[in-house]
């Protein structure tokens, strides 16, 4: 199966077509998420994926703002 683009994944998650676990496993953060589960001694699950998502995910628009080094205050 072809890897889904981030926007597509977000759309599918918002539609309810996929859950948080599928989202995390399909996203670029899959390895980080799986490592986090391993370090916490838990199996990947819908619940842990949702928690990981809430703690880490930043939407694309926000990401563009953050990455713009000419925007904001840099001391």
């Amino acid at each position, binding site marked *: 199966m072809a890897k889904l683009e981030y926007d597509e994944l977000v759309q599918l998650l918002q539609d309810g077509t996929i859950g948080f676990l599928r989202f995390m496993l399909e996203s670029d953060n899959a*390895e980080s998420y799986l490592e986090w589960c391993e370090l916490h001694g838990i199996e990947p699950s819908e*619940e*842990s994926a949702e*928690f990981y998502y809430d703690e880490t995910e*930043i939407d694309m628009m926000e990401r563009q*703002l*953050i990455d*713009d080094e000419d925007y*904001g205050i840099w001391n």
Partner: protein
Amino acid sequence: MERMSTEYNRLKAIHPDSIILFDTEKGYELFGQDIEVGKKILNLDTNHFAPELMEDYLFMLVKSGKHIIINDEIDVYETKLNSKQEAHNPIDNTDMPRKKKEKTPQEELVKTTKSAVDETTPKEKKSESQSATQGEAAERKPREPQMVTVNGDKVTHGHAYQSKTNPEDWYFTAKINGEQLKPQKMDPADLVAYKEKELTVPQLMERYYPTKLMPRVPDVAYQVANVLPGPGGNLTIDKFNVYKETDETRADYGKYKFYAQVGDKKMSTTASREDLNAYFDRVATPGQLVERNFGDRLHLQSHYEQFRLPEGIDPKGIRVAKDKEDGKWKVSADLGEGRGRTSRQELSFDDGYSLFKTKTATREQIAAKYLTEEISTKLAAPLSMEKSASMKM
């Protein structure tokens, strides 16, 4: 020894409750007041132990609720400070995470348990691939860390930015080891101070990402069942995790909760943001989180030890009695001459059980748990004229 002493004092100043282990030629060495801890918890006769005992000793220290910092590169660190070449290493350099000033125990354990052929962690691999896709531009723009955490993590890109959707809102964010942290909404006063350069990135990190800066607990704390001393013997935490409440009929619907299974007890409770972060970043063990969140339900003596009455309250004035009107057990305290008594606060079943049945809570601790706020407020308030007058008479 002098270097060790300097490093010990520096680390203790930042993390007074942590045990610092120095990786030396003798093995792992304890210093200063930590030597006493080693004697007490690890039954050591000397101030050091062999590396092969590390895993077992880490487990014992973690079980006793200690945070641990391993320092094994004093010389390297001091060399680095004087090395211009090292100081200008780009943050995305893939070998950066290996050059750590202070290592956490779990990093040490990971290193010993992972394949010797491939020591690169998934995160490092990811950073490599991301750097590659971002092209050479990123490599040409090396960025020195704004701070290095006690775990050896490198903080870069710490800055404030304004929301485009809600321009009145400002956020603080940073990267740790190249990974973007979720932005945190800033307090307006912090923004002003940051604009005026009165607040630094490390200070903002401390304020908005405190658990990212705390020493992580060793891996073993999350890989084996934690044990807590209970009223009738040791209690084993068979399961501990976090979930979001999905029952729409509940008042805590949509909130994150901790779930713990301890023996035949299955419990859940709404989790505080502080504890959720501590769990996410592994700066508290499951045992510590169970103690904090379910200590009363498990009637743990250690739970009640956190409650202390404010100074000046005579324990003899504490009354735990059944209310004649509603038949419920309530606690109140005498605040001394001229200040009268506090209100009577109803005890939960678990606190009553801990006080009367398991005797793991004292009357003073129960009073402190329920009445501290009221006592503090009343003690801070001036005595009323009427009361002052009656005292004079």
